[in-house]
């Protein structure tokens, strides 16, 4: 079927529309959204397999040929990210069924989550720069609603900041696309890339490259532009926080990877030099934040920022090893961040606080929760059999062989501090004398734990079976390093 690659976008959008008709039927909403998201996972998995077997999949929407219509492109990178997104969305919905509360479910919670998935999957799949903007907006609109959903005071305050920052960055995105369009005269990404290589990326195109870095850096929270993230991600309830932490920033990172590898690879020294510099500062800042706080949510939130730095550093080094490492790491990081957020959500639910100093001894009553957290934590830090290891190993190896010694050492040293920050949670939260908490009995820990346990199992499998998934990763790397493959697939030359 030629329309296969649109199914990960179409299934959630149809589900979202269907759910709009049933705001009052909560059980029906839960079942429908869980089943259909599971369907999305299946579709995305078979899409990955199809891309693996038959090469890059393209679809000229409305039958208009490549540079004139919108083209959707699924290469291995976007297909794997779509699969990861669908898995995380499925598990977050599973978690929401037990935790989000009927008051929120009654007000279109599930349809909006579906629309968020539409935006993220669409942004990963599109091959048109303006269509990317539109899917960004679909994603951001849904995230605005999810952020403010429920209307507590902190959510209202933080969503004002979040919306303000994102409206400005979206306006900048439109301006940047306008500049790019006036220089190259096309919106199709493959066609833009072809035309930029004809003029060899002169001064104005480097300026546009930096403007894109600012735009996507604002969405993806890199060093000087991350300021909105710690506050905004602190506000919403756990499953929403997990969706945001796992998906939204990664779309920004993916867009940087896509535009830089496809458009702006001609002036490596300057554009990539800035990217490397900023990504290292991002790592340093994220790590400092992660060890500074005694608050569960803040620690994990700053870990997101550090991970973004690691991914972008690996990508910007641009060697075979390091790019493979960062593709591997982005998938690992999405999964493990979702797991960590869901686990600390359970801890907060039990203890009624997110302050580490006010909790202790949870391991006595909740050993399953404790060991799931432990596995997720060591996987985040990158202990060998688990999934965090291989990505970082490849990134660091790539860094050393390409002569970015300082950068590779920063990545290496950051792992230590990340391990310290999550072990702090383990030591303060789980060890020590047990205390009694008000919500102790009422929290359905067992059913809440299903989603994070599945995520941790996936992460372990990714680590143990890294040989098996490596062919997929190297296929994604191939397109990133040789834009010609992408261009040929889209323009069919």
């Amino acid at each position: 079927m030629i329309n296969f690659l649109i199914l990960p976008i179409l299934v959630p959008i149809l589900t979202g529309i269907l759910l709009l008709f049933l705001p009052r039927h909560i059980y029906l909403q839960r079942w429908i959204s869980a089943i259909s998201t599971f369907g999305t996972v299946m579709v995305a998995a078979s899409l990955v397999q199809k891309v693996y077997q038959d090469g890059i999949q393209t679809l000229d929407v409305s039958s208009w040929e490549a540079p004139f219509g919108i083209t959707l492109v699924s290469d291995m990178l976007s297909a794997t990210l779509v699969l990861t997104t669908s898995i995380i969305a499925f598990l977050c919905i599973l978690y929401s069924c037990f935790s989000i509360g009927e008051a929120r479910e009654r007000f279109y919670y599930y349809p909006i989550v579906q629309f968020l998935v539409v935006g993220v999957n669409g942004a990963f799949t599109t091959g048109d720069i303006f269509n990317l903007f539109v899917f960004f907006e679909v994603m951001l609109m849904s995230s605005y609603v999810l952020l403010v959903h429920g209307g507590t005071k902190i959510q209202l305050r933080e969503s004002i900041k979040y919306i303000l920052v994102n409206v400005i960055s979206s306006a900048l995105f439109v301006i940047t696309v306008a500049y790019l369009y006036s220089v190259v005269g096309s919106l199709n990404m493959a066609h833009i890339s072809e035309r930029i290589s004809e003029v060899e990326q002169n001064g104005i195109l480097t300026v546009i490259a930096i403007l894109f870095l600012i735009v996507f850096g604002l969405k993806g929270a890199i060093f000087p532009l991350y300021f909105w993230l710690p506050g905004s991600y602190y506000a919403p309830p756990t499953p929403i926080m997990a969706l945001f932490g796992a998906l939204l920033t990664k779309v920004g990172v993916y867009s940087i990877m896509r535009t830089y590898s496809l458009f702006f690879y001609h002036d490596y020294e300057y554009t990539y030099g800035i990217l490397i510099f900023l990504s290292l500062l991002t790592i340093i800042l994220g790590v400092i934040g992660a060890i500074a706080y005694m608050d569960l949510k803040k620690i994990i939130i700053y870990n997101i920022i550090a991970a973004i730095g690691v991914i972008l550093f690996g990508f910007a080094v641009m060697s075979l090893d390091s790019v493979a490492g960062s593709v591997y790491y982005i998938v690992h990081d999405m999964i493990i961040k979702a797991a960590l957020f869901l686990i600390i959500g359970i801890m907060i639910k039990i203890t009624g606080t997110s302050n580490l100093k006010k909790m202790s001894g949870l391991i006595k009553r909740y050993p399953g929760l404790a060991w799931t957290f432990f596995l997720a934590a060591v996987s985040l830090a990158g202990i060998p059999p688990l999934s965090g290891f291989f990505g970082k190993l490849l990134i660091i190896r790539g860094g050393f062989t390409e002569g970015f010694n300082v950068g590779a050492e920063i990545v290496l040293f950051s792992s230590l501090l990340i391990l310290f920050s999550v072990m702090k949670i383990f030591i303060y939260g789980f060890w020590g004398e047990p205390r009694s908490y008000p919500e102790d009995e009422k929290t359905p820990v067992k059913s809440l734990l299903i989603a994070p346990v599945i995520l941790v199992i996936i992460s372990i499998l990714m680590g143990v079976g890294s040989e098996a998934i490596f062919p997929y990763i190297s296929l994604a790397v191939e397109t990133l390093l040789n834009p010609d493959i992408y261009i040929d697939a889209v323009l069919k030359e």
Partner: protein
Amino acid sequence: MILQVCTKVCLFIIILFSVHSFFAGHYEPGGGFIGGLMTSGALVLLLIAYDMKTLKNILPIDFKYLIAVGLLFAVGTAAASLFFNVPFLTHAFGDVQIPILGETALHTATLFDLGVYLVVIGVTMTIIQTIGEDE
């Protein structure tokens, strides 16, 4: 009183004009978005001249469902191409014999536009009604 009488006269002219610009969208300026905005403009005039209750008596629909129906039209038109195994959103057109109107040129883009039209009405009216009902 004057406002209400004027509304009675103007309402249908505005709605006719909006329907006209909706159908003219393919060949002339117009289309689903502007048509939908003008229809909801007519409904807002009704709201100003009378009150919320009157509007609900005349149009007993929940506008939130209108959004969903409109989205269904738009996505449904696009997704129908899946059944014919042509790329997503590929439109079809042709001359169709309709009993009363005779031979008419029809295009599935109209159905897509109808979706846009309904969504725009639904969204505008939902915004205005919820703000209006807010105490």
